């Protein structure tokens, strides 16, 4: 079997893209323009066939993987995924009815072949599972051990999350879902494959488990000793420290891992002294009088007193880290461009900055999780539960910071004085709190 003509595929692709939510999100707010075909590469001639189409609309490029088979074979392949059908296309010189073309991401057989292609034959899988998301890429899990992101909406140059993954690995940072393969073409990252750890869980779920254990004490009927019914004074800090589900040891380990992350970031991308004026600007841009005052205080700091400026994670919270059997891992660098606009102000999350920004992010994340857990408790327990949640947040934030700040590898990145560390933590924390109050649905 030979392939349909590129023009036939492009005609079908054009109609198909118009039906896709992710396509419309990607072009939203951008100037009108015609779709054009940048490239069409046939990756596989035999049935099932596979081609990679690169389509552009203005400066925005898209990748569409098109598969095709004889019409009679397609029904079974696309069962339950009929919306992936693009249409029929003639095959030059074939003389028959041609083939049915569809989004190759709907064909398990083609996906396992794609994995072999992307990994240059190093990896093979028997099963593939799609992680359903309407975003700029398709997420695919192979044999529950490999994870592929196949990008639909492309970015020129190196995609930051992919670059970060490979650079950190090269810098010897192991607390990472290990990268396996990178598929590049036309100056873009087209797909990336990394390990998949089925039993790993995002940090937020572990934090909620710990909070559930603790906040149950507020009910007064908990078999592990309620405090709510005692009527007397309680000591939330002592209660939190003695809870079975205490999370502080995990947070301390997360702090140590984070220190390793920053050390590797500085190795991979370099470090320079943070400029007080620039840091002050970031703080003050928050917009409140308090932030303006903090910004002023920081702006007046002596040069080189604020520690280093490095490539930071920039969106570091409990959903971005995972707990696996080998410890805490950075699970992602979260730069889905389609969601960037949902952030209140992307300029407030610069990719180069003080490592303390990431720390403030994580501490604020504890606050958010505590609020989430509190919302699930009945109103009658609210007062005691709030005290316990606040104590939980304090204890775990302290443990996280202790794990980080005592790690030898980040000492060269930190401000010389603990007062300055404290000031920066306060300031960056205030930025996050202010942003959250301004737009509670931000995350």
């Amino acid at each position, binding site marked *: 079997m030979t392939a349909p003509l590129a023009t036939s595929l492009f005609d079908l692709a054009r109609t198909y893209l118009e039906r896709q939510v992710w396509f419309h999100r990607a072009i939203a707010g951008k100037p009108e323009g015609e779709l054009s075909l940048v490239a069409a590469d046939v990756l596989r001639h035999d049935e099932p066939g596979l081609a990679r189409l690169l389509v552009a609309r203005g400066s925005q490029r898209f990748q569409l993987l098109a598969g095709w088979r004889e019409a009679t074979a397609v029904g079974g392949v696309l069962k339950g995924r009929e919306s992936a059908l693009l249409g029929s296309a003639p095959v030059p010189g074939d003389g028959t009815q041609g083939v049915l073309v569809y989004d190759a991401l709907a064909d398990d057989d083609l996906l396992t072949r794609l994995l072999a292609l992307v990994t240059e034959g190093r990896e093979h899988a028997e*099963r593939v599972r799609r992680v359903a998301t309407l975003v700029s890429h398709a997420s695919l899990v192979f044999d529950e051990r490999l994870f592929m992101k196949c990008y639909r909406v492309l970015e020129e140059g190196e995609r930051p999350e992919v670059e970060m993954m490979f650079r950190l690995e090269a810098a010897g940072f192991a607390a990472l879902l290990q990268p396996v393969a990178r598929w590049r073409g036309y100056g873009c990252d087209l797909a990336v494959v990394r390990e998949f750890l*089925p039993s790993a*869980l995002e940090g937020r779920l572990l934090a909620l*488990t*710990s909070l559930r*254990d603790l906040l149950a004490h507020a009910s007064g009927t908990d078999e592990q000793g309620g405090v709510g019914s005692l009527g007397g004074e309680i000591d939330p800090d002592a209660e939190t420290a003695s809870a*079975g*589900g205490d999370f502080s040891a995990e947070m301390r380990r997360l702090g140590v891992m984070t220190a390793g992350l920053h050390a590797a970031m500085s190795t991979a991308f370099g470090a320079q002294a943070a400029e007080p004026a620039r840091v002050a600007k970031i703080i003050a841009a928050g917009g409140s009088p308090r932030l303006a005052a903090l910004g002023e205080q920081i702006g007046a700091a002596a040069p080189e007193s604020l520690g280093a400026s490095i490539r930071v994670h920039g969106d570091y919270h409990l959903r971005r880290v995972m707990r696996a*059997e*080998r410890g805490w891992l950075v699970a992602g660098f979260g730069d889905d461009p389609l969601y960037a606009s949902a952030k209140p102000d992307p300029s407030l999350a610069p990719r180069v900055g003080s490592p303390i920004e990431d720390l403030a992010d994580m501490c604020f994340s504890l606050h958010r999780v505590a609020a989430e857990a509190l919302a699930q408790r009945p109103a009658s327990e609210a007062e005691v539960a709030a005290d316990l949640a606040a104590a939980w947040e304090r204890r775990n934030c302290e443990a996280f910071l202790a794990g980080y700040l005592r790690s030898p590898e980040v000492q060269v990145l930190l401000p010389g004085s603990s007062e300055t560390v404290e000031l920066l933590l306060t300031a960056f924390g205030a930025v996050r709190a202010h942003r959250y109050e301004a737009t509670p649905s931000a995350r």
Partner: protein
Amino acid sequence: MDADPTPRNGAPLLVPPAANLSLPAAPTWRSLADDPRWYQKAVFYELLPRGFADSNADGIGDLQGIIAKLDYLGWLGVDCIWLLPYYPSPLRDGGYDVADFYSVAPECGTVDDLAQLIEEAHRRGMRVISDLVINHTSDEHPWFKESRASRDNPKADWYVWSDDDQAMSDIRIIFCDTESSNWTWDNARQQFYWHRFFHHQPDLNYENPEVQEAILQVVRFWLGLGLDGFRLDAAAYLYQREGTSGENLPETHAFLQRMRKEIDRDFPNRMLLAEVNQWPADVVDYFGQGDECHMCFHFPLMPRMFMAVRREQRFPITEILAHTPDVPDGAQWGIFLRNHDELTLEMVTDEERDYMYAEYASDPRMRKNLGIRRRLAPLVENNRRVAELLHALLLSLPGSPVLYYGDELLMGDNIYLGDRDGVRTPMQWTPDRNGGFSQADFAQLFLPPSMDPVYGFQAVNVEAGLRDPSSFLHWLQRMLAIRRHYPVFATGEIEILPADNPSVLAYVRIPEEESGETPVLCVNNLSRFAQAAEIGLGRFEGCVPIELVGRTQFPVVGSGGYFLTLGPHGFYWLELEST
């Protein structure tokens, strides 16, 4: 129903009333099959001869007492009895200070009694192994008495002597609560002797070929009597060398391999179970290439089961399983919840130890060396659901389960007794005098039975457990019976399954391809609250899960995640039948 014990020394044999307990019909499936790998499928039951049953009313449990209880153990589902030391001993370390390797302590009976116990157990399809202390002896052992007498007697080099107590100072002190050095000065010989444990337990010198041969002779003697194997006490410490940790040395492995070789040659179907309290990566070396010990205890798993339940999340367990290497063909882990020693915390981090002390040993009296000296029931605050969950884990994780006497009743402990005696109080058979353990006067008893209002023998005893069909005892007996029908629990591979809820631990036991068995899915809720979880069962798409206790059919496994809800500390064992 009970054996007909023969009176010895002319004294009337007083069988405790509990011996006449009416037991439900005993299962008939057990037989002493000629299976060289019987230990892989066996359920072990560890008991203290002095604390189990007293047949002659002297206040001390004995071998005849055990014989009288064999039907009970058979009914429970025990496959192999592990006897704690019964050798003559000054009892300064629970009998692990052996003063004579070739006889039975008079208060426990005679060598003939042991032969009878083995025979009676075998007749019921059960096997018997015993503790063998090969690292050291009591300082009252004739070998040591001779060795210390002079520097040139025939046994002068049977122990490790030195003029210097600074040698091998890097080697850790295990009983750090009581010992300040691994060397003790001997006035008679005017030298220091080496001991890894108490100062009254001098280590044998395995560099001396005569010592090796003497210990192998002891092994031959007991196996010749019919014992089915040994639990090798302190197997990691046989040799010591300057500049090393004194643990797991190649010479130690070489000697154990020699012992195995001799046993395989002369005593088929016997087994060695090593007590090596080390990380699994080091312990697997004691399996050799399948030519050293048949079984090893998996020490680090046990505290992590407790930790996982207390934290209500699975990582303590999945982490240690991830760090547990595969074992050679024919080898098996021994896993347990509690035993005669403290709940050992040697194989946890300092941070984890602090956590375990805080959660499970709030009273300093509960702590011992690097561990917690408590029985299972008090450890879990007598929570029946937690006890069931922990046993469900014990019976379904890879390894042969080792039960500790009395834990099938949820017996309590007595933290006010010295050393580890708190977890070695007499077995509680009935609500009668001394809990049915002995007809001696209370003051004569080797240790007082528990009379605690919650755990005391008046409330917690075999008779009560047998009468109550919903007792923990009956529950455990049923679970052991179910487990027996599914050899995959014993020899299957384990695969941890993804579950989106940290409080849920799901794994599948996968049989060997040609066994014809079906995989069994085990799902455990580590939380005291009801939980829901989506479990990744993709590779079992199309299978029908069938719950093993009630044979209830669950919805067929589809292509996506499999949703299950579990009650507080609930668990499921689900056979995955192909359609």
